[in-house]
């Protein structure tokens, strides 16, 4: 992976896809507001198929809101296309079915459900059959990627350590069979060794061909893996 030469000072549009690669995600004029508070203003960037793209910037500057708007978790203004198809506004299921899955900040697991149920619910984006979900490659891969979770599959997710919970959240994202995995602050509150393990797994996922978007406050760790960077300042993406 090579770090983008434009990282850190990229003006709007320069954090675009590599020449020749198909565009996985294109965001044009994205704005997200919570009531009267504007979190993201007129963000424009694109991510190529196979890229690992870091969205960096200080906390409270709208990084997570970009992912929330792009994945449809919150209503947005502006245009988002996923593999060339315009994404429906506020429709998470549509985004997931078209290949974009979010691993959210603070994991958002179901603490009183077993780990296995937490992971298999990722399959809900593409099936309603629990048998199909259990037999699927996506679920199998998600579980196999984390051998450390195997002894805990029947344990309630809320009783796991923070690092293990993060792995469950990533595994749930993978069970959705994504082509683009958007991971929000994957190492928040984790010890360095655990954070390293999380990044090792993200590197494996990327090496297997999944496009990655990683939101990180600290760019140093993200840029060990990412070849592109979108810098967010005061809700403006792209401009440093």
């Amino acid at each position, binding site marked *: 992976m090579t770090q983008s030469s434009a990282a850190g000072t990229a003006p709007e549009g320069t954090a675009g896809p590599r020449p020749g690669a198909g565009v996985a995600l294109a965001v044009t004029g994205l704005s997200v507001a919570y009531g009267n508070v504007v979190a993201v203003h007129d963000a424009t960037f694109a991510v190529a198929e196979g890229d690992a793209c870091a969205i960096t910037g200080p906390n409270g500057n709208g990084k997570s809101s970009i992912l929330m708007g792009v994945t449809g978790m919150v209503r947005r203004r502006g245009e988002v296309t996923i593999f060339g198809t315009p994404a429906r506004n506020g429709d998470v299921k549509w985004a997931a079915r078209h290949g974009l899955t979010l691993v959210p900040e603070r994991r958002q*697991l179901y603490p*009183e459900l077993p780990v296995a149920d937490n992971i298999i619910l990722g399959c809900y984006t593409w099936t309603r059959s629990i048998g199909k979900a259990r037999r699927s490659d996506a679920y199998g891969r998600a579980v196999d990627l984390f051998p450390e979770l195997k002894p805990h599959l029947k344990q309630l997710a809320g009783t796991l350590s923070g690092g293990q919970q993060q792995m469950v959240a990533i595994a749930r994202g993978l069970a959705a069979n994504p082509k683009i995995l958007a991971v929000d602050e994957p190492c928040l509150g984790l010890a360095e060794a655990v954070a390293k393990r999380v990044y090792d797994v993200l590197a494996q996922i990327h090496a297997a061909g999944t496009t990655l978007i990683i939101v990180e406050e600290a760019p140093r760790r993200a840029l060990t893996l990412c070849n592109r960077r979108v810098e967010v300042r005061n809700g403006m993406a792209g401009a440093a």
Partner: protein
Amino acid sequence: MKFGNLLIAGITTGSIYAMFAVCVSVWYRVSNILNLAVGDFAMVGALGVDNLYRVKGLPLPVAIITTLVVVAVFAYLYDQVVLRIAQDGRRPIEGIVITFFFTFALSFFIDGVAKVLFGTDVHAAPTLWSGPALTLGSLNFERAGLLVLACAVIIGGAFWLYIRFTLGGKALEASGENSLGARIVGIDTRQYRRLIFIGTAVIAALFGIVESPITGFTYLSGATISLTGFLAAAYGGFRKPGRALVAGLFIGVLEAMLGGYVSAEYGDTVLYAILAAAILAWPRALGFESAVSG
């Protein structure tokens, strides 16, 4: 065999409480709203069938199906109009208002309409399985009671299987656990809120129909049923249907034992005193802390 017969009576009443408690807590998990109208749907089931069968002269199966369909359509419209505006609008209403008052108002509304339609006398749906009580040694089993138990076991069992063995059931649980986390995997939490509201309304109406030959119903009976279901559901912070079920059964059995051994007249008073004392003694263990803090 006084004890055995009291136990049977207690389990029968308890299974009714348990079903209403499960209805209250399952829907609370999904919607964060306490359904104070659940008992009123039971009342509509009982008095609706009685009215259509006895007064209007419809055949019994038609009367039952018509009543259940009317309850389902009414629940659907209530969700689509009132709850949609309250929870899904641009300015969702939150906190105590949505938790209590929307279904509290619904309860009054249903009672008012029922008073006009069915009058103020005590009525009951016709007995679905008539005949003398069945006996086993010195134990007596009322047929209506057995029917209530059978309904509770079938509906409770079907619901357990749904939760345990289907992805839809797990999605329902996930909606209750973490609605944001549920939306991330594409679960439509509003759809579950609607489905469970309609489903619990129909189940409550069905229980009203099978239960009413035992107790008799007036247009005001719904509030008492809701209260007991509500109380049993509270013994799990309103979020644990399993605990609500056990609490419902326990309250039913305790009520029967107190009525049989302590005082038929003051049994209920002693029952509520014991329940209140238990809540004061072990608020956390009984789930009341989470009920208050949400």
